[in-house]
C-alpha cells in the first residue's frame, strides 16, 4: 500500500510542477497533496475475522477468570448477618409494635430480638438498617428537598424551595428541614447487646460518627449560625417528626441540627427500593479479641417507623467490609462467567478458523 502511495505522490508533484512552469503566474487551484486532504492518513485497519479476533477472546478469558475468582473469594470472606425486625409474623417480638403503630403515636414502642452469631466478626463491623419496598427513588420524593436550606442558608430557611411542597410549610411557618425526604426520616433506634456466658447484657458501643460522607457532613450540610438559639428559630418541625431538628442529638452539638449524621445519611436517597443505610460502626477494640465474638446478642429496637402500610420490611444488618465494599458475590461470578464465555467463544472461533478461515492465508478470494 505504502509503495503505491509514494508513487502517486511523486507523480502528483511532478505534474504539479510542470503545470506551474507552463501556467506561470496563474495560481493553480490544484488541491494540496497532503495525506489528510487526500484521505490517506496512515491508519490501522483491523479486519475482524475468526483468526484475528480469537486471541482477544482467549486473553479476555484468561484475565477475567482469575479476577473473578479473586473477587468471589474476597466477597466470601466478608461476614454478614441480617435480621428482619419488621414484625410481620406473630412470632416476631415486634409484631405488636408494628401492628399498633402509626406516625401519629407518641409513645415509643420498644421490642427486642435475640440472635446468635455463629462466627466472630474480626474487623470493624458496620451496622446498617435496611428497608425494602421503600421507594426512596421515586421521582417526586427525590426532588422534595431544599439543599440551600440544609446548607444553612437563612433565606432558604425562612422561605424553602417550592420543590418541598407539600412539605414546605405547616401552620404558616416554614418547615425546617422541608420536603418529603426529611419528613420521612427513619427514626427507629437500634441498640445492640452482647449476652456473655453469664447471661449478662453488655452494651456494645456504637459509634455514630463517621457514618456520613465527609463532604456531606462538612460541606453540604451546615447549621445556620444561630442554631443554638433554636427556640427562636421561626420554623416548624416536619409533620412526621416528634422533635424539632435541633433536638436530633442534643448531647453533641457537632451532631445536632442539619449536621446530624443519621439525618445526613437518610437524606442521601437510595438508588433502589431495597436498600441499607449505615447506622452505626462497631470499632475493633484490640488486636486480640474479635469485634463481635460469636455468641448470643440482643437487638433492642425503639420501634417508631411504620412500614407495613406499604408492605415494607425493616432489617438490621451487621457486616464487615473489604476493599471492594460489602458482601456481594455477584461481581466475582460475573467475571468468572464472562471470562468463561469468552474462553468458550474463543474455542468456537478456533474451530471456525481452522475449518473455514483459510482464505487470507492462501489468497484464494471467492470470486
Amino acid at each position: 500500500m505504502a509503495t503505491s502511495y509514494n508513487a502517486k505522490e511523486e507523480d502528483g508533484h511532478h505534474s504539479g510542477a510542470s503545470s506551474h512552469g507552463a501556467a506561470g503566474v496563474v495560481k493553480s487551484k490544484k488541491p494540496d497533496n497532503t495525506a489528510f486532504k487526500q484521505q490517506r492518513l496512515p491508519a490501522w485497519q483491523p479486519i475482524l475475522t475468526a483468526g484475528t479476533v480469537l486471541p482477544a477472546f482467549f486473553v479476555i478469558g484468561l484475565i477475567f477468570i482469575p479476577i473473578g475468582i479473586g473477587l468471589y473469594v474476597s466477597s466470601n470472606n466478608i461476614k454478614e448477618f441480617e435480621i428482619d425486625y419488621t414484625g410481620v409474623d406473630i412470632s416476631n417480638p415486634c409484631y405488636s409494635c408494628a401492628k399498633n403503630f402509626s406516625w401519629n403515636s407518641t409513645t415509643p414502642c420498644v421490642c427486642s430480638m435475640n440472635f446468635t452469631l455463629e462466627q466472630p466478626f474480626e474487623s470493624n463491623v458496620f451496622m446498617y438498617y435496611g428497608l425494602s419496598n421503600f421507594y426512596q427513588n421515586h421521582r417526586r420524593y427525590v426532588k422534595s428537598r431544599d439543599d440551600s436550606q440544609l446548607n444553612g442558608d437563612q433565606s432558604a430557611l425562612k422561605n424553602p424551595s417550592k420543590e418541598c411542597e407539600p412539605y414546605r410549610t405547616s401552620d404558616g411557618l416554614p418547615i425546617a428541614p422541608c420536603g418529603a425526604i426529611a419528613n420521612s426520616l427513619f427514626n427507629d433506634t437500634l441498640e445492640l447487646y452482647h449476652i456473655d456466658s453469664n447471661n449478662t447484657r453488655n452494651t456494645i458501643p456504637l459509634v455514630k460518627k463517621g457514618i456520613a460522607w465527609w463532604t456531606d457532613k462538612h460541606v453540604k450540610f451546615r447549621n445556620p449560625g444561630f442554631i443554638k438559639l433554636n427556640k427562636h428559630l421561626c420554623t416548624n418541625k416536619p409533620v412526621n417528626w416528634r422533635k424539632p431538628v435541633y433536638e436530633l442529638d442534643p448531647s453533641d452539638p457537632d451532631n445536632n441540627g442539619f449536621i446530624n449524621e443519621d439525618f445526613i445519611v437518610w437524606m442521601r436517597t437510595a438508588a433502589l427500593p431495597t436498600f441499607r443505610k449505615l447506622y452505626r460502626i462497631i470499632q475493633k477494640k484490640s488486636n486480640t479479641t474479635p469485634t463481635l465474638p460469636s455468641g448470643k446478642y440482643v437487638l433492642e429496637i425503639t420501634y417508631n417507623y411504620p412500614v407495613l402500610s406499604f408492605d415494607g420490611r425493616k432489617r438490621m444488618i451487621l457486616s464487615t467490609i473489604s476493599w471492594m465494599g460489602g458482601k456481594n458475590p455477584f461481581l466475582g461470578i460475573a467475571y468468572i462467567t464472562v471470562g468463561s464465555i469468552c474462553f468458550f467463544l474463543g474455542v468456537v472461533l478456533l474451530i471456525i478458523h481452522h475449518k473455514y478461515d483459510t482464505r487470507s492465508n492462501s489468497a484464494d478470494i471467492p470470486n
Partner: protein
Amino acid sequence: MARETEDPGMAKASKVKRQRKKKTKENKTRTVHANLLYDNAKGEENPNRHYANNKIKTTKYTVLSFLPKNLFEQFHRFANVYFVFIALLNFVPVVNAFQPELALAPVVFILSVTAIKDLWEDYRRHRSDKEINHMDCLVYSRAERSYVEKYWKEVRVGDFIRLRCNEILPADVLLLSSSDPDRLCHIETATLDGETNLKQRQVVRSFFDLDCDFDPIKYNSIIECEKPNNDLNRFRGYIIHRSGRRDALYKENLLLRGCTIRNTEEAVGIVIYAGHETKAMLNNNGPRYKRSKLERQMNVDVFWCVIILLVMCLFAAVGHGLWMFQYGDKRPVFDVLSPDGTDLSPIMSAIYLFLTMIIVFQVLIPISLFVSIEIVKICQVYFIHQDMELYDEETDSHLQCRALNITEDLGQMQYIFSDKTGTLTENKMVFRRCTVAGVEYSHDANARRLAMYQEMDSEEEECTSHGGTLPRRDSVTSHQTPWSVRLTFTHFSYSVLSADKPSSDLQEKDITPDPQLLDKVNECSSQMDFMRFHSQPMSQLPSDLADVIDFFIALTICNTVVVSSPNQPRQKVQLTSTKSIQSNHLQVNKGSSSSLITNRSSNKGCSSMLSSPSAESTLTKLDEEQPPRDLEHNFGPVLPCYDGKAWNLEEGELRYEAESPDEAALVYAARAYKCSLVGRLPDQVTMELPHLGKLNFELLHTLGFDSTRKRMSVVVRHPLTDQITVYTKGADSVIMDLIKPPDTGSSKGKRQKKIVNRTQNYLNLYAADGLRTLCIAKKIMSKEQYACWLQHHLEAETAIQGREELLFESALRLETNLQLLGATGIEDRLQDGVPETIASLRKAGLQIWVLTGDKQETAVNIAYACKLLDPEEEILTLNEACALFNFTTFEIYPSSSPSSSSSSHTPPFMVHRLGLVIDGRTLAYALDKSLEDKFLAVARSCRSVLCCRSTPLQKSMVVKLVRNKLKVMTLAIGDGANDVSMIQVADVGVGISGQEGMQAVMASDFALPRFRYLQKLLLVHGHWCYSRLANMILYFFYKNAMFVALIFWYQFYCGFSGSAMIDQWYLIFFNLMFSAFPQLITGTLDKDVSAETLQQLPQLYVNGQNSEEYKPYMFWMNMIDAFYQSLVCFFIPYFAYADSDVDLFTWGTPFTTLALFTILVHLGIETKTWTWMNWLSIAFSIALFFTVALCYNASCPTCYSPSNPYWTMQRLLQDPLFYLLCVITPVAALLPRYFYRACQGTLFPSPVQVGRQLDKLPAETCRNILSLSRVKVGSPLSPKPPFLSLAKPSPKGCNIKDQRSFPSSRASIV
C-alpha cells in the same frame, strides 16, 4: 410577458416581487426615460423612480430581523418544533423531569449552532454585497455636465454610464455609443455562462451613424422594453424617438451586468435594469436542496423511534398507574402528594407520567442527528473537493459540489444517463474529411498524422512518467508539414490554460490539406483571379471548381467566429490598414444611394435624433440601381495591404473564438486551404483567398444557429459575382430536406442529383465512422427575392409578441431550395479514459444509457468506441423505418417470454446479451403512456440502451420514466444546455464543465471537469460517503436507544415514577458533547475499502446500490443490540450494587461512564480504519467526560437539585468496584457483536470485507488476484441484471440487426 409574472424562479427578493406585482397592474412593459430630463433622480415626476436601484442586498436578515426570521425558518424543520415542545413541557410543574432551563439547553444549542452558521453565511454575503455596491463606475451627471465617479449602488435606471475597457458592467445597460468605429462593443460573459469567447454587442441602430461623441444631454428618447426576467438570451423592446419613430431593440444591444468590456476603449449606455432586476441577479439561484435516499430511509426510522418512544412511555404510564393502584388509599411516605397537596388518582398520575416520560426519553429521538449529518456532509464535500485525482490540470478546475446534501446518493446510483457530445467525447472537433460536389477527399495524410499524434501521446506519457518531457515534444512537432508548423503556435481559445497538453490541441487547428483538394482550390482561385483580371463573368467557372470555392467560402464565413490575435489576448485585431479602405468602400456604397446622403446630411451636427438603421439602408440600397462596379476599384486598395509586411506577420497568429467548437474546426480547416478568415465586422466579413487576396463580403444577414432549426445561414453579397448569396450550414438531415429538388431534365439537374446521392452516401459513411456530419449548401437570390424576404423579416424582428415564431418562419422562408455544395466530417474525439470508465461503471452494476441528439450511426459508433456496445451483443434497433413494427415488437417481446417480462426479478439465464438502439421518433412512440411499460421491459432486458436523435425534453422524459417506474436511483450527466432538463430531473445531476458553456453546470448537483472522473466520484467517494453516513446513522440510532433504555429498565425499580438515576446534566449532554466527536470523525474519515481497491473492484459498488449498509432490518437489529447492551449495562451495576447503601446518583454516575465506554468500544468495532484522529477523538471524549464530571461534581455543594452530585465522581474514582464495573460491562455488552462480526468475517464475508482483505495483501499478490478476478466477471460479486428471457433472438423484420460487422469501421475512432 404574462409568463414573467408567474415565473417563480425569478422570485429573488420578495421586495422586488412585490414591487413588480404592483407595477404589473399598471402596465406590462417597462418604460425607461433618461434621468437627465428630471432634476433629481428620486424626484416625484421621474418615471423611473419605481424601478429597483442598483444596490444589491443578497442577505437574508437585518440586525433586527435576524432572530425572529432565523427562528421562523428553523422551526420549519419538524424536529426542531418537537424539541422545543419537549423543552417547554418541562416548564409545566406537574410533568417536568429536568430543570426547565437545563432542558432548554440542547435545543438552544442546536438552534444556535444553526443560527451561527446562518449568521456567518449572511455576514459573508453582506460583505461581498458591500464590496460590490462600492465599486466605482462613471455616471453622467447633469450638474457637472460630465461623467463622474459614483458607487455602483448609486446607479439608477435611466442613468447614462460610461464604460472603459476591462470594466465590469454594473447593471444591464443598453448600448448607445461605442468608441469602436464599427459601433461595436465586445464583452466577455464568462461570469454569466462560463463561455470564454468574446461576444459582440451593437450600438442601438438609431445611434449607429452618430459621428461625434454621444451627448447624453441631447438624448430624449423613451425606451420601452419587457419587464425584468431571467432569460439571458432574450431582450425585446423598442426605443421611441421624439419624432415618434420606433426602433427595435435586441439582445445584441444589451450589455448584461457582470460581463466585462473587452476590446473596446469606451462605451456609453443607459441603464435599463438595475440591481436585483438585472438578468444576472435574476438568474442567481442558491444551491439546490434535495433529500437523499438515505435520508428518506432515515426519516422512516426516525418515525419508528417515535413509535418506540411512545410505546415505552405508554408502558411506563400504565406501570405507574398500576403501581399507584396497588397501594390503594394508604399512601406510603415516599409517594409525595402533588404540590398543592391533593391526592392524584392513579389514572391522572399515569397521564402526567406519560408526558414526563416523553421528556425523560426524549434522547431517543436523536436531536443532534440532523446537525451531525450536516457536519459530516460538509466534511465529505470538502474531501471530495480536495481530491487531487478529480482535479483537471488542463482546465485548472476541480470537481464542484453544488448540492451539499446528497453526497451519499452518489454511492447508490443504479442508472446513468449520459449525453454523448462533450460528455463522452471531448467536444473538441477535428476536421477529418469532406466531400465537395460529390467528390470525396479523404485527407489520408491528415488521418495518418492524427494516428501519429496518438502514438506520440502514448510515448509522451511514458516519457512523462520517467521525467523529461518538453524538449522532445518540440522536436517532434517541428518536422511536420510547413502548414502545420506555422499554425502550431496559434492558440485555441478553449484551451488557454492547457499548455501542458499541446498535442491534443494541435489536432484541432492543424490540418494537413488533402493534396487533390488543395490543387483544386489553387486552380480555382487562379482562374478566378484571371477572370477578374480580364473582367469575365464568374459564371464561366467550371461548376465543380465553383462549388469548391463556394464550399470554402461557406466554411469560412458561415459562422459567428470572432478573430483576435493571440499575443494580445482579448484584443480585437485592428485592421488598421484595411479600415480606411473599408470606410472608403462604404462611402462608395453609400454614395450611390441618394436617400442615404440626405439622411446623413441631416444627421450632421450630432443631433441626437438619429435614423438610418443599416437594415433600412440596405433596403434602399437594393432599390437603387448599383452602378457597374469597377472591379479594380473594389479590390485594388486591398492588394497592397495584403502585400504589406505587417499583415503577413499577423496572419499566422490569428486566433479564432467560436461559440461552438465545430465552427472553429471548420474555419481552421478552411485556413489549411489558405482560405482564411481575417476579420469579422457586423456588416462585413473579410476573408483571404489564395491568388485573390482579401475579399470583403458584405454581410446582409445572419440567421444564427438554433437547435430546432439545426442550421445557420448567412446572407452575403458576393464580391466577385455581386450576387446575393445565402450560405447555409447544418445537420445533414435538415439540409437534405431543404435541397432544391433537382430538375431531372437538364444536365445540370442530373449533376445535382448525382451530387446529392453521392454526398448522401458519403454522409452515411462518415456517420458510420463516428464523424459528425455537416452539410454545406448555398442559394443565390435575386435582389427582388431578397428585398421581399427582408421586408417580412424586418416585420418579424420588430414584432414584440411572438417574435420567435415569426423569426422562425422567416428563416424557413429563406432556407429553402438550396443547392448542395458538400459535406464535412468532423471527428469528436472520445475523452481520455471513457471506455475504461464505462467498463468499470458497468462492472459496478450501473446501467448506462446514452441519450444523444446525434444521428444513429454516429451514436452507435461512438457507443462501440467507448465500449458501451459490445460486438458480442445483439443489437436491437428501433428506428423510424421500423416505426410501424414497433408496436408489434413491444407486443411480441413481452408475450413471448411470459415468465419473465412482468416479473423480471428472477430471470432465467440469458445467453444473448442485448443492446438497444432507439431513435427520437420511435422514442416518442415508446414514451407514450400505453407503451412505456413495454418499452421499459425491453430496455431493462438490454445491457445498454442508446437513444439517438432525442430532444432535450425526451431526454428528461426518459430519465423521469425510468426513475418513477423502476424506482431506481438515476444519475444524469451532460455538458450542454440540452442536458439541463435531464440533469434536473435525475436524482443526481452531474454537469461536465466543458466546452458548451455553463448551463449544465449551473443546473447540476456536481460538476466534473471530465467524464472519467465519474468513476472515482461514484465508485470511491460515492461508496465512502454512503457507507460512512449509513453507518453513522445506524450508530446514532443505536447509541440513543441504548442510552435511553438504561433509564427505561430503571423504571421497573422506581415504581415507574419517571425517575432517572443518571444526572440530568449527563443525560442532556451525553449526546451533545461526550459521545459526539468520535462518531463525527468516523463518519467523516472511515474508509471501509481503500480507493485503489474500490476502483479495481467496481463490483463493490453494488453494496451501495442494494443499500446493504443500511437496510430496514438493520435498524431493528441495531435496536435489539441496543436493548441487549443496555440490559447488560443496567443489570451488571444493578446486581453489583444490589442491597447496598449506595445512593441514587452515586449509583447513576457509573451508568453514564459505562454507557460511554460501551458505545465508544462499539464504535471501535464498527470503525474500519483507525487514524490518529480516531484515537484522539476517543481519548478526547473520555477525557472530556471525566473532566466535566469532576469539575461539575466539585463546583457547587448545594446546586443542581435534585441530584446534587457534590463530590460523587471523586468518591467513585476511589472505589475499586467502579473500575471493575468499567472493565466487565463493556466487554459483556459487546461480546455478541464482536463475536458476530468475527464469524461474519470468516463464514460469510460481504464483498466489501473481501475487498478489505485484499487491501491488506501485499500489492503484488493483490494485483495477481485482481487480474484473475477480472477474468471471472459476472461472479457472485457482480450483479445479475434482470434479463428478459428471449427464447430465440429470431430476426423480426428489421428490428434485430446483427451488427457484428461493425468492428472494422470502428477501428478508426479511438
